Every structure is written in structure tokens, then in C-alpha cells.
């Protein structure tokens, strides 16, 4: 056990291998899971943690620049309806999808700089604005439209983020990505 650097039991790669379009500067962990039949596009400097799931069965997945998709999150989950749309999930730039969060497919949009908290759920077709914060366990219903700078906290309470720290946050994200690039061995070729 001491020799091994990680214990990562294999996951059965169910379903087809999706066509991917990666920027050369992305970081994607070897044990990330990409499935589906529609294209998955990841723009520059984004990071996909181990055991994150990107499912394009319900439509194309687009991940913007400098996004961080954490472990165990699911981007593009096919909901109960199982419909296929052209754009499954679109993440803007500087989006953070936290641990065990799930974003359903179906023309779902997450705006620039938005954080989807730990275990949060975004329903199919929801449009979350820019620089929003969904605190842990938040549920955004299918088709809901969340205005920019909204904070959803305490089981659905809402308020406006008036900190005005977009610049600062983006810089922080860039710093975090610099560190993650060194820590997470990237293996984009596995998915191409």
C-alpha cells in the first residue's frame, strides 16, 4: 500500500465514449468519467477533478474558461424525463461546480463566475445568472431563471450579492487553478 500513490478502483465505463473537444491548457484527471454521445467541449485552463462525471447523453456539454469541476459532481445528468436537447449544459467562464453537485441536462445554463455549492442540484433547463452563489444543498427547480448576483442560502432564501468582488474572485480562481494543475495529473489523451 505504501508504494501505491492512490487507490482508485476502476469504474465501469458505461455507455459510449463521447466526442471531445479540449483546449490544450485544460487539466482533466485520469479518473474523471466522460460518457454520452454528444460532444463535450472544455475551454482553456479549466480543471476537472478525479471522479467528476460529465454526461453528454442529454445534449452537448460546454465548459467555459477557468472552470473547476470538483469530484463526484455530475454535469449533464439526464433527469427523469430523459429528453435530448442540442445544448445539454453550458457552463460560463470561472464557474465552480462543487463536490457532489449535480446539474441536469436540457438547455441548462450556468452563468460566468457562479458557484454551485456542495451537493446542490440544478434542474433541467434552469438558467442561473452570472456570479451567483448556490450554497450547499441548494435545489434550483427545472426551468427556473436566477438573476445575476443572486445568493441562494438557508434552504431557498435569496438575496443579492453586493460585495462587488468579481475581479478578486476570478483572480482567486486563477490561483487555485495554477495550484491544481500541479497537483492533478492530467490525462486528456485518455478521452480523446
Amino acid at each position, binding site marked *: 500500500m505504501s508504494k501505491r500513490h492512490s487507490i482508485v478502483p476502476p469504474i465501469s465505463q458505461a455507455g459510449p465514449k463521447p466526442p471531445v473537444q479540449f483546449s490544450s491548457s485544460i487539466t482533466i484527471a485520469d479518473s474523471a468519467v466522460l460518457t454520452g454521445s454528444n460532444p463535450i467541449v472544455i475551454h482553456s485552463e479549466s480543471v476537472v477533478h478525479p471522479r467528476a462525471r460529465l454526461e453528454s447523453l442529454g445534449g452537448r456539454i460546454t465548459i467555459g474558461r477557468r472552470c473547476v469541476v470538483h469530484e463526484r459532481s455530475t454535469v449533464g445528468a439526464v433527469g427523469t424525463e430523459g429528453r435530448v436537447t442540442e445544448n445539454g449544459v453550458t457552463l460560463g467562464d470561472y464557474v465552480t461546480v462543487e463536490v457532489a453537485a449535480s446539474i441536469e441536462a436540457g438547455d441548462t445554463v450556468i452563468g460566468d463566475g457562479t458557484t454551485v455549492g456542495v451537493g446542490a442540484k440544478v434542474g433541467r433547463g434552469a438558467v442561473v445568472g452570472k456570479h451567483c*452563489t448556490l*450554497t450547499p444543498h441548494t435545489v434550483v427547480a427545472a426551468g427556473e431563471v436566477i438573476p445575476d448576483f443572486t*445568493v441562494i*442560502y*438557508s434552504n431557498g*432564501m*435569496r*438575496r*443579492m*450579492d*453586493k*460585495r*462587488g468582488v468579481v*475581479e*478578486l474572485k476570478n*483572480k482567486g480562481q486563477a*490561483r487555485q487553478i*495554477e495550484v491544481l494543475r500541479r497537483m492533478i495529473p492530467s490525462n486528456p489523451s485518455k478521452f480523446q
Partner: protein
Amino acid sequence: MAPLTPYTFIQCPCSDPSTLASSRPADASSPTSISGQERDDDDGRTFDPRAPRSNYSLYPLEYLLYCEDCHQIRCPRCVSEEIVTYYCPNCLFEVPSSNLKSEGNRCTRSCFQCPICIGPLGVTSLEKPADANLLAAPDNAASPPSGPYILICSYCNWSSTEIGIQFDKPNSIHAQLAKMRNGGVTRLTAKERKEKRREAAAQSGTGVPPTAAPTTTGGDGQDLDVEAQFANLKHFYQGQLADANAAGASSLSSLGDLGFASPNSLSRIMSIYTGGSLHDKKAKTRVGTMREALDSDEGFKLADLDESGAIEKLHEEGYDGTVSSEQLSNQPPNVGEVQLHGRSRFASELRPIPYLLRTKRSKRCPICRHIISKPEAKVQTTRFRIRLVAGSYIPSIAIRPLPGGGPPPDTLQPLRPAQFLLTFKNPIFETVKVTLASPATTPGRFASKVTVLCPQFEIDANTDVWDEALNKDGDKERRRRKGEDSGSGPAGGGQAEAGKIWERGRNWVSIVVEVVPASLRPPTISFGKKEDTGPLREDEDVLEIPMFVRVEWEVDAGGDEVGSVPSKDKDKEAKEKRELAYWCVLGLGRVSQG
């Protein structure tokens, strides 16, 4: 509905009126006689777990303490508490009790809760860190972040800039905040206010505050906050009283001395609110009336009845700008806002909430005043000097459905017998004799039948674990023997038999209780007396069995037990009988309503 996990609640004797009545006249130092008496009183009376009073007397075993001198169970409601340490739950610093009187019961360092979501607030620098070259430069070259600083909530992203507050220093935020109103306007502290007034008084040349020509500082009274207004009023009336006392040599009639403006009622009111020694008993002076405050320096403030500003603000900010009643109730009192005597209606008027202090408390027996629980005074230690918990004196009772009867159903079927296994675990180092008694049917509207198959048994002492390990073979043998005793079938599928123990171990015994749950249909026909035919009430479908437990054991009659009465047969042997009796409630599960 979530399936109910079986529970055991124990009744503290403090709530039993018969105990209270019997223990008052009796000497507290004769515990055995009390419990004996109590038992006699209890005969023929069944404890009803559904009685409204029972809500307040039933506790899980973990919540109960035990007084070694009274030999009785004590509950959180009957013990008397003494505060050992005050500390802030956020910074974990101890607050000396002397500070409490002057500073109040909140943390005066930099610990605040978010006024929006009550999450913790952190101090961060507003200024953007000089970045680009920072990353390349080594750490020590990084300049320490400089002000201004703000409080920020990392959960809901509230920041103190929303109420217009920034700080110069990252530490002692509480002191800085005390000098600031929302919007960054400076606010006088009590000390400064006093000094200012003294200066004003010195300027006017007399010791008494000026009455005719007010030295107005602000002009209008709008900048008076609650604290300043109170201080000014207090000062003004003190001056008035002094005047009245000086001038009141000629005693007038006491008639008409009851109005608000009379010195007597004033001094009475002031002694109520300030707690000071303003009330001078000797001064029986009677001055007809005194004048009232006239300007803001004297604490006068026109009621602001014009709410158009608030309405306009409401139009502008909408619902999002208002506060909820919960947020309002979390606000510290007298935060010094102008509006409505410190009550805020808009989110922009909220103040960061300094953390309420928490305490470590020791507990005393209410009867003999002995300490039965005492934590170490230091905040960071979790040790106790004294911790007499009931769990180390009385047997614990665990409940589970009897295996072998198919998969345990989530609900109990009415009119179908169900068996439960009660496991009694003995915590003490003596063998105890347990006697159980329960009514044949449960009290309440729906009487379920209850049969305790083995109401009397002994549990072996809680010997050392190593003893068990050494005597493992013997123990096993005994268990097997018991198994042969109790049933002929194989282990686990055995038949429960009346008068027999189900299973026994080192310091535990399992017995079987059989219940026949009642049907939950309210009676439709009433026989003679008036019966309650209402619909099912909350939790009325939970099958609860009241059970009287009596535990008897023998102890070495130590010399230290001076007050204890020797056993009833008066033999002064080395052994002494002890007994403890109490009611408990076994919650078995919900009865199906099908």
C-alpha cells in the same frame, strides 16, 4: 412517516407529586425509607406517559444524573446549576465574570454573526492584494494586507459594506463597531458622551446643566440614538432632582404628588431603571412639579411620525431590502440605531451580531446540595471533576423486535401479538435484582395489552472485562444452559416462555415483552360514561408502555454512609440493602392505522 426507533424514557422523581409530598417532611438523609414509602404510595396508581405533565418529566437515560447521597435520580429540570466559566463559542476565550457586568454577555473581541443568516463573520482586507508580482516573489516579500477591513459572511456573502461599515484595524472589531453607526458615521460611546457633557457643563460655568440656553450640539434631535437619549435623560432628571431637593426645604402638601412630573415618582422610576441609589429617603421634600426635558441635550426627542422616508425606501429596495422577524430577533438590543429605538426594518439598518457567550455549568442536587456534576473550569478541556451520571448507577434498557418473527415491520399491526426483546445492562459492580411491573393494558384511549414474560430476574455484576475474557468458557456454558432452560428450539428461533429469561450475558439480561396493539379506531359507541370519540391525535398511534422498575442490590456498609438507614431487618452485617424504584416509558413503535 419515518419509522420510529424504539426508545426508553425514564421519569425523574422530582415531577411526581407524591414524591414531593413524602420527601418534604421526611429527612433527606434517609433515602431507603423514602423510596419505601414512595412505593407504598404508588400502589394502585399507574403512571400515564400521555398525561400532559409527563412531557416534562421523561428523559433519556443520558440526560439524567444521580445523587450518591440521596440515592436518587436527578434530571436537568430539578438540579440547580452554577456557572463555572463564561466563554465565547467562537474564539473560545474565557470571559471573567467581572467583565460580564460591564460589557454584557456578548463577546467583545472580534467575533460576530451575520445579521442575515447567523453564519460566522470573518475579517478581510478590502484592498486588493498587489498581485501580479506577488506570485513570483517569495512569501516574505508579500506586504501584509492593509486596511480598510470589512466583516464578511462566507455563507451568504453578506458584507459590512452593505451597511456602510469599514474598519481601520483587523482586531478589536467590537470596540471599533461601538463607535460607528451604519453608514460609517461616528457614534459617541458612553464614556465620550459623559466627557462631552462634563465639558459642556464646565463651559457654562455652573455645576448644574444649563436650562435656559441649551448648548445644542446637533441642533435637531435626530442624531440621538437610544443610548445617548437615555444618558441625556438620566443626566437631566438627576439634575432636576438635585435642584428639587435643594429647593424643597419648604415642605408642601403631598397632594398631587403622584403625577409623572413629581420628584417623588421620578426618583422612584429612576431607581427602577438605573438601579442606582438615587432614591433619597431622607429628602421628604415636596416641590409641586418639575419641568420636562426641552432639547436633545436633555434627552428630548420629537417622535418621528413621518414615515414617508421609510415608504420611499421600501419602494426603492422592495421586499429584499426589508428584514425578517427572525433576523430582527437575532439583533443585539440597543444597537444604537436611530430608527424606532433600535428596531430595524431595513437590511441596511442591521448590525453584525456579537456572539452570545456560552457557559460551563456545575450541577447540584436540589435536596442535599451536593455537587453531582462539575466540569473543569478551563474552556478547552472536556474533562469533568465530578460527573455522576445515572447511566453508571441504573440499568440501561435497550429494545428491539424479537428476531425470528420474520422481518421486523415498520409498524405494528393492530390486534396482532408482537414480541420485543428488552435488554437490561447492569452498570454497577454488584449483582442486582430487577422487578418489573406494568399495567395489563396501556393507559389512554387505545388500550393495548402488555405482558412482561419475565418480570423478575437478577443481573450479574459489571465485572472487569478481563474477568469475562478469562472466564469465557464458563460464561458460554452458562449461556447455553440458559438457552436450554428457556426454550427447546434452536437459538434465535426459540419460543418465548413465561417466567424465563431469554438470554443472559456478563452483565446483561434479555427478557421478552409481548404486546397486542389496540385498534386505532376511535370508539363509536359509548357505554354509559362519556367517551372521547375524537380523531387520532398527534403521536397517539405510538405504542408506549409505562413500566415500573425496581432495582435492589446489596452494598458494603461503609463507615462513610453515616446517614443511611441499615436494612430493614436491622442486622448490622457487612451488607446493606439498597433499592431504587422509578417509572419508565418504553416506546415500541407506531401502530398501523390500516
